[in-house]
């Protein structure tokens, strides 16, 4: 019988290496349960960083500072996040500013008697690549505080709908966060669980408002 020992060595070794590879994969599959990073519901939210304006000054913001890594569903101590991607020159964002301010005050427990967990609102202000959209940190400040001489979507920022906001605005004029979160347009909203998992996104739930989503998800989790 003819035998080719050289081929034997390579086949034999190839089988052994493949076996080792699959042992490693099985080990990883059994001992870990990785969660994809992304912005679909169930994904781990990507990082959200940048300079943020809190109403009086700009400071380095990192979303991780808000997260509770070991949070479990039903734990009311954990604080949720509502991230809004907006552009101060986007007419839809300007029109929804009033409603956003009311929701933020209510769910951040500034006003009203919200019984659920605190939902911290965060706005990431970008500058879309559309003619007429020309934003700046001054404009972000004016939009948030509803004051100043800046122009938002064709009219004075000071005359936008609603009251001045009480949540932080991140400078995302370079669109870094927006690209990382793969935001198709503004405004876009993401509700983030205290452990950093995306619980809801407006792009996947076009018929549901932010307020409805918070009621549905945070109170359900509390009951659980």
């Amino acid at each position: 019988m003819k035998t080719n020992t050289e081929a034997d060595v390579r086949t034999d070794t190839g089988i052994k290496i493949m076996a080792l590879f699959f042992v490693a994969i099985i080990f990883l599959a059994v001992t870990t349960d990785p969660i994809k990073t992304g912005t679909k519901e169930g994904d781990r939210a990507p990082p959200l960083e940048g300079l943020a304006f809190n109403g009086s000054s700009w400071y380095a913001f990192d979303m991780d500072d808000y997260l509770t890594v070991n949070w479990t569903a039903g734990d009311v101590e954990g604080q949720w996040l509502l991230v809004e991607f907006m552009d101060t020159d986007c007419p839809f964002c300007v029109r929804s500013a009033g409603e956003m301010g009311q929701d933020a005050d209510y769910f951040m427990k500034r006003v009203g008697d919200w019984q659920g967990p605190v939902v911290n609102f965060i706005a990431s202000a970008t500058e879309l690549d559309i003619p007429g959209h020309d934003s700046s940190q001054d404009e972000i400040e004016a939009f948030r505080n509803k004051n100043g001489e800046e122009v938002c979507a064709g009219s004075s920022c000071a005359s936008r709908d609603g009251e001045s906001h009480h949540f932080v605005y991140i400078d995302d004029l370079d669109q870094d966060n927006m690209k990382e979160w793969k935001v198709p347009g503004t405004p876009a909203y993401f509700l983030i669980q205290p452990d950093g998992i995306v619980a809801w996104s407006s792009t996947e739930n076009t018929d549901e408002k932010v307020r409805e989503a918070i009621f549905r998800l945070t109170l359900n989790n509390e009951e659980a």
Partner: protein
Amino acid sequence: MVDQNLLLIAYILPIAFGLVLMTKAGDGLGASLSGRNPLLKHARRRHMLGMNLVVFAGFAVSVHTLWISNKISEGGNVCSSATVFSCDDVLGNAQYNTDPVFNIPWGMIGIFAFCGLMFITNCVSKEPDALWAENYLKYGKYMTALGLPIIALLISYEVAMEKICQFCTMAHIANVVCLFGFWRAGKMHEEGLWNDEEPVEAEAEKEEGKKFW
């Protein structure tokens, strides 16, 4: 949980021992170890044993790196630290922890790469005089050389983050040591040090034969 930095020793030792076996320093070591294992008397066998050790350590550390990545994605802390050595910060950074083309975790790429290298070193160890062996060593050299720009890219990420991932660094070192190993194997071919003209087993048999007669 075991201190992850302690586990690093499990990777440093085989890589360092493998490197010693591949260098001139390994000659003395081989001579002292040949009492236990006569095969280590031969430079080529020592060299290939060293390469196999380094490649296996590289494979194991790549699996460990992917395991850490997965654990971090679950929300766990594996090796986070306030110091510059914090693999959690590096492997947990979604901006940098996958390759920019296919979005595959770097740990998985390491596993593929070291599986390929392990195949080469194992095959060549078993059939060092095969016609394909010298070519395989060249492929190994090209593969590990290709790893250099990738390592440079990953180091640039670490510089940007101002953090160092110890486990990733260990895999990078294993790749560089392998590149040296493949280069030296080529040199051994050129210098005629590759073949075992007097296999140890044959010598031992001769000795046995003399005693018998």
